[in-house]
Each structure stands twice: as structure tokens, then as C-alpha cells.
């Protein structure tokens, strides 16, 4: 306080007088106003960051996607109408039908610079266009002289035998074959043929499509998961969409770009022969699909379930322990050296970086206690393949991490219970534990729970320690027990963010939204709990 006495000793003559005083006062006021503005601006900055952060996430969760299908829907249907079942792409189709007078091959004229020997070429559609279709009919074929576009369409729609179309034609079955080209000539032609939609294909047709376009190995894999013949139509349709149509994301756009630069996006899509569609990356399907190597097909089911499992373990482990420790420190521990040591220690633990806890978990739970955390002790896995990188290890590690936070919050809540309550309890002869159990705890519970919930919400967003103890990089099976490999939502976000492809950023943003909503929900519960407790106490 020495400063103030010195000031008081300053004589009156040292102060500025008259005009000088006025101008000085004005200067001080202006300075005050300028700084007040600055201080307000800094405060607004905090708000701004939060808004920007949310805007950034939302901006990437919705927006245009330019998608090009490997095969357009019409083309799939067209190929399904091909009467040669193994109409492989870009195969030397001519060889396949050479010498078969009942076959017709249709392909882009680009693929056949000159009509090969033994065939007759019939142009289909606009003959003057640079890229047109050509139908090749073997020379031996005597009846198909008048082939043109109309007849071709008829072939597509009706009958399986030539005689179905005209009575004087042979009774052999029609062999109509289309060859897919890279320039999209056939697909453009197919688009004009008003063929039925993919959705309108029957189960058998879809099975046929799958058999035509999928490799044998892949078919076998799907068959093992669920026999093809038993699958529902919707399931088959999804498979066709996913594997045959095989949409490929060329570019993704943010919500802002989608709203502002719509024209450019459409133009880009057209120049690439693709379509631009507005997509929400956050869909109900996103929540229930497992992880996948393809961003558009990926979901967070595994990660979400993993998070719930891990958090459950964390709660079971750390909340009772933390509350117990808080009670001990506040109600039982005499203020001796032991109490003080624990006290300081807990404060220091709360400041240890989370990654160090990860290393602790790695050494203790994953390695030293492998037998327990891998479940080999309980016979769930054999000792050879025992790995401690399980849900149990993750939950326990996070438990240790939030334990100090729970203890500190719990202590505060217990300290807030007035001493008069304790004295009254002791006055009527209760023991320490009775006093705690029947008087202190009931009053402190809302506060303790609020602190515990906040700590748990921190654990839910924790990433680094779980990466260190070894979260799985790719799993698509649901965790079913404590000893399962795991991934959690924040780790999923981390992995997707680290990928170079733009579409993974989009699903990372969608996953972030899910995580934030989850945390908001938990924190809101904590706040509600606190408010209710406060209003009851009033």
C-alpha cells in the first residue's frame, strides 16, 4: 500500500491546472473509451471463434457433390436387356459373335473405325454426329436387312426369339449385345431410350445384373454374408447402386459455395459428364452404417457404439472411486501430512497432459495387465492372440484421466454443504459415516453429479490417450464385449480429418456434428441438474 501514501505526499502544485487539466482529462477519457472498445472487441472475438467453428463444421456437412457413375442407371438397364449374359465391358465382342447369324452387336462408332470383315454396319441415330452408334450384323444374317433405330428399340423391349418380332424370322433366340465405351456414347443413347428405371427391375433382373458386373470373388463374399437368392429386393438394389453404378465423387463443395456458386458447379459437373447433387453428409444412414473405405458409404456406427462402451466402463470405474476419494478427503481425512499429500497430488494429476495418461494406460492396462484386459484370463480368447488393446483398457485409461477432475469437483460440492448440518447430525449421535450417508451426501449429490457428468463429457471427447493405447485403425464389426477391439467417435474424426481426400473431410464434419450434439446433450443434463438442485435449496 506504500504506493498510495507516496501519492498523497505530492503537493497540490504538481497537478496540472486550467486548460492543461481540461485537455488532460479529455485525453484520459478518450483513452478510456478507446480501450473500452478494444476490450469489447476482444470479448466479441470469443463469440466469433465459437460461431466460426460451428459455421465451419456446418459448412462442410452439407453441400453439392459432383458424382460420376461408372455406369449410368439407364446403361445398367440397357445392358441387362442384352441377351448375351456375359456382356463384359470392352471385351472383343466381335469375336464372341463371329459366325453367329442371330447376333447383333451395338457399340460406339469410335470403337470400330472400319466395319470389320464378315459384318455389315448399320448406323444408329444421328448419322452426322461425330460420335454415333453403329450396329454390326454378321454377313451370314439374311433376315435383318432393315435394321434401324426403331427396330433396335423394339428388340430391346420385346421378345427373346427373333420369331416373336416377325413370323418369318428364325426361331433362334436373339443375341443382342452392347459394348460400353469410355466416351459415353452408348450411355447417352441409352438415356434417350426411356427404359424403365433401375428401381423397376425385378429381383431376377437385379441378380442377373450383379452376376454380370461383379467379380466372382466379390459375389462369393456377398453370398457368404447372406445368400444372394435370399436377399430382399431393396438389399439387391442397394448392392447394384453401390457396386455396379459405383458412383465416384469427383469434387465436393461447401455449403457456402453451393449457395453462391451454383452455376459454376453445374457447369463443372456437365464438363465432366457427371451430375451435381446437393447432399447432406449427416443422414440417418450415416449413424447406423459401419466404417467403410468409401466415404460416401461410411458411417459411424462402430465408433458410436465404441464410444458408448468405453464411456460406460469409464463411468463405472471412475465415478464411484472419485466420489469416494472426495468424501474421504473432505469428511474423513484429518488435515495431516497424508491428507495434504493427496490433495497436492490430485491437483498435480489434474494438470498432467492427457497423452501421458495414454502412455500410462499402454504400460499398465495394455501390457502389464494383458491377461485381464484382453480377457484371456476369463477364456474369451486364447493366450497367443491376447491383445490388451481393448475397450476395457480404453475405459480404464480414461477413468484414470478424469478421476482427479471428479475428485476436485466432488470436494467442492461436499465443501458447499454447511457445517451446521454435520454438527446437528453428530449432535444426535450419528457416526461419521452415518452423517455422510444421511446428511452430507443427499445435499451434495446434485453438485457431485454435475461435476462427474462434466468430467465424463470430457472423456467422451478425448482422443490422444486412446490413440496411444492403440485404437483400431479400421474395424467394421460392432463391439460386443469388454474385450473387443475398439474405435471411438473422436478417433474416427481424427482419422478422417487426416485423409487427403475432400469427401473424408465432409464425413469428419458430419461426425463432429454428432459428437457436439452428444456433448451438448450431456452438458445440458448437467446444467439442468444443477439448476434443479439450486432451486430446491432455495
Amino acid at each position, binding site marked *: 500500500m506504500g504506493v498510495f501514501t507516496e501519492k498523497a505526499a505530492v503537493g497540490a502544485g504538481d497537478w496540472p491546472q486550467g486548460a492543461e487539466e481540461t485537455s488532460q482529462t479529455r485525453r484520459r477519457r478518450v483513452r478510456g473509451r478507446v480501450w473500452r472498445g478494444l476490450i469489447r472487441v476482444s470479448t466479441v472475438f*470469443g463469440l466469433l471463434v465459437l460461431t466460426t467453428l460451428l459455421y465451419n463444421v456446418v459448412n462442410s456437412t452439407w453441400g453439392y457433390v459432383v458424382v460420376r457413375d461408372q455406369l449410368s442407371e439407364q446403361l445398367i438397364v440397357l445392358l441387362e436387356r442384352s441377351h448375351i449374359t456375359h456382356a463384359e465391358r470392352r471385351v472383343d465382342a466381335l469375336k464372341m459373335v463371329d459366325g453367329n447369324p442371330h447376333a447383333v452387336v451395338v457399340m460406339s462408332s469410335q470403337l470400330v473405325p472400319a466395319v470389320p470383315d464378315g459384318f455389315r454396319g448399320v448406323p444408329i441415330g444421328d448419322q452426322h454426329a461425330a460420335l454415333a452408334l453403329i450396329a454390326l450384323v454378321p454377313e451370314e444374317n439374311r433376315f435383318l436387312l432393315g435394321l434401324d433405330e426403331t427396330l433396335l428399340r423394339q428388340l430391346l423391349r420385346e421378345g427373346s426369339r427373333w420369331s416373336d418380332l416377325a413370323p418369318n424370322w428364325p426361331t433362334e433366340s436373339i443375341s443382342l449385345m452392347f459394348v460400353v465405351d469410355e466416351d459415353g456414347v452408348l450411355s447417352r443413347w441409352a438415356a434417350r431410350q426411356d427404359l424403365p428405371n433401375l428401381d423397376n427391375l425385378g429381383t431376377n433382373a437385379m441378380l442377373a445384373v450383379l452376376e454380370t458386373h461383379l467379380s466372382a470373388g466379390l459375389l462369393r463374399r456377398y453370398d457368404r454374408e447372406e445368400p444372394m437368392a435370399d436377399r430382399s429386393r431393396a438389399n439387391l438394389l442397394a448392392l447394384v447402386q453401390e457396386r455396379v453404378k459405383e458412383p465416384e465423387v469427383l469434387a465436393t463443395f461447401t455449403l457456402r459455395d453451393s449457395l453462391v456458386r451454383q452455376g459454376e458447379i453445374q457447369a463443372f459437373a456437365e464438363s465432366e459428364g457427371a451430375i451435381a447433387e446437393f447432399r447432406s453428409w449427416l443422414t440417418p444412414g450415416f449413424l447406423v452404417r459401419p466404417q467403410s473405405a468409401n466415404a460416401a458409404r461410411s458411417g459411424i456406427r462402430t465408433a458410436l457404439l465404441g464410444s458408448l462402451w468405453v464411456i460406460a466402463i469409464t463411468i463405472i470405474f471412475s465415478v464411484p472411486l472419485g466420489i469416494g476419494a472426495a468424501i474421504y478427503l473432505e469428511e474423513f481425512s484429518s488435515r495431516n501430512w497424508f491428507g495434504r499429500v493427496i490433495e497436492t497430488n490430485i491437483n498435480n494429476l489434474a*494438470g*498432467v497432459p492427457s497423452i501421458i495418461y495414454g502412455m500410462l494406460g499402454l504400460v499398465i492396462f495394455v501390457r502389464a495387465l494383458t491377461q485381464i484386459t484382453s480377457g484371456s484370463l476369463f477364456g474369451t480368447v486364447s493366450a497367443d492372440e491376447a491383445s490388451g488393446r481393448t475397450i476395457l483398457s480404453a475405459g480404464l485409461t480414461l477413468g484414470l484421466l478424469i478421476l*482427479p477432475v471428479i475428485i476436485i469437483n466432488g470436494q467442492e460440492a461436499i465443501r458447499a454443504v454447511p457445517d451446521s448440518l454435520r454438527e446437528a447430525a453428530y449432535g444426535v449421535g450419528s457416526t461419521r*459415516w452415518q452423517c455422510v450417508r444421511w446428511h452430507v451426501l443427499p445435499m451434495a449429490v446434485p453438485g457431485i453429479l454435475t461435476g462427474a457428468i462434466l468430467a465424463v463429457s470430457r472423456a467422451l471427447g478425448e482422443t490422444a490417450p486412446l490413440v496411444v493405447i492403440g485404437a483400431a485403425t479400421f474395424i467394421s464389426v460392432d463391439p460386443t464385449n469388454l474385450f473387443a477391439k475398439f474405435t471411438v467417435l473422436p478417433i474416427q*474424426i*481424427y482419422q478422417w480429418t487426416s485423409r487427403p481426400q475432400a469427401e473424408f473431410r465432409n464425413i469428419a464434419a458430419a461426425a463432429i456434428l454428432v459428437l457436439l450434439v452428444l456433448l451438448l446433450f450431456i452438458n445440458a443434463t448437467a446444467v439442468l441438474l444443477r439448476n434443479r438442485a439450486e432451486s430446491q435449496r432455495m
Partner: protein
Amino acid sequence: MSVKPGAEFLTGGLGIEMDSRRGLGRRRRPFEQFMHGALWLCGAISILTTIGIVYMLGQEALLFFRREEVRLLDFLTGWTWQPQTLQFGIWPLVNATMGASLIAMALALPLGLLIAIYLSEYASFKARRILKPILEVLAGIPTVVYGYFALTFVTPILRNMFGVEVVEIFNIASAGLVIGVLVLPTVTSMSEDALRAVPVALREAAVGLGATKLETSVRVVVPAALSGISAAFIVAMSRAVGETMIVAVAAGAGPRNFADWSEALGGLRALNPFQSAETMTGHIVRISGGDISYDSLDYDSLFAIGLLLFLMTLGLNIFSRAIASRFRERYD
């Protein structure tokens, strides 16, 4: 239990039995003792955790330094961290960590203090009620989300501002700035607590002497709360040093190595914030996130880094508490 006749009037016929041969205080209460023991154990777990941390870091780091490929002197002075060539100099990692933390503090320190001054001195009751929860929300956002923010928002802005050739996709500056945002709530709330603890009488005295609000805040209240504010900065610094996910996502994967001190500091190349560099925490996460075999040199080296990180943050935390308690002004 035998009850002597005559003791009944004490219990008022409530059915409470009383052992008159023994005093109540000395009665054995197994349950009471059990609970006492159980709660003691809960408290002891925290001690066990600390012992665990110190033991495992010390043990594994010792294994690392015992290896003949590793020399402690090189570890402490070297500027190349390259496990493939058995070069373990810690400085590239420490340099990146310090760089990111200092950038973070350069943002969080002035901003946090100004916001704290606003909340404690300028804000109306209503404004405080709105602003405080928002800051709490900011503090509750997972760090991996901040990492995403750094990579997809701050980095593009920096690259727009300073040029694509100058600013790399992964860089220390972007990570550092976002860490600054992350620790902002810590700085703000701790500083605000310190400012609010300054008695109103001091403010009234200043105002009475003709000081403006700004002069009162900056010349009287802030100096009076300086110990608490310094403590807040140091705690924030310790959090910045230990922050992992932001740097893992946005700062780059690979230490920025130099041959020696003169190369690192010549032209201050080691200090360029726009190049990618790996921090201590970033390195631990990247290496342990891959398929690492236990008992390898790589694995052991992580614990040497971890030990250093632990000592740094612990030192900062203890320092912060020492400042807070030693230089605390007492107003009674």
C-alpha cells in the same frame, strides 16, 4: 445384548437397545471401519496413479537411455530426431512444441486478459450471464474438433494471407493460433477469478481519486491481481505444451531436423512458424498410433519424450501454484 432395567427411560421405549456396559464411543462398528477403509483406498488410488506415472515413465525412459545407441548428451543437445538413423536429438521436437505454445500464448495472453477485465470490471450482470456459459462451451469442445478447425479453416486463411509458397499445408502457426483459442477459456476464467477477488474498496479508492474506469482497472485492479493472472498464464502454457490433437492434425508429421545449433539458428530457420514441424506430443501420437512393436527403440524413445513432457508440465504447474500462493495479496 442385555439391557439393564432402568436404562429404558433413556431410549424412551423407542426400541433402541443400549449397551450400558460399554461407552458408545468405544463401541466397535465394523461397517463404519470398513467404509473408512474403503474411502481411504479411493483416496490412495490417486497416489497410486502418480506413482504409476512416475515409475513407468522413469522405467521406460531409463531403458531408452541405457541402450548403447543412445547418448544422453546427444539427446539433450541434438537437433536431429531420426530414429531410422539412430539420431535422437530432442531439440526439433522441443522447438516445435515451444513455437506452437508461444504462438498460442501470444494470442491467449492479451486476449484472455482483456476478456477477463471486461467480464470482471466492465460487463453488466446480464452480459456476464450470457458470456460466461459461452466461454464454458468453448472450453468443452473436444480438441480434435479444434484440430479440424485449424486444418480446414485457419490454415487456408493463413495461406491466403501470406501466400501458398510461404505457408505450408501443415504448419506450426495455424496449430499455435488454435491452441491459443483452446486455452483462452482457461486464461479468462482464472484471471477473472483473480480480478474479482480484489476488494471493491480498492476500486472505490481509485475512483475517488479521480481515476477513470480504465485507469482503475489497469493501474489498480490488475496489479493487485497479478499473482493470480500470472498463475493463469502459466497453467495455460502448461496446457498448450501438453496439447496433442491440434498439433497432430494441423502441425505436420515429421520433425523439422537440423544438423546442429548453428544451422538451426542461422537465419532463424528453426523459428519459421509457417513450415511443418512435429511437436513432442505430435510425435508420440503418430508413432504410437502406427503399428509399433513393444521393446523397440522407437517405443522406448517415446517414453523419454513423455518423461520430458511430464517434467515440463509438472514444473509449470508447480511454479504456477507457487506464484499464486507466495505472491498472493491478502486483503482482510
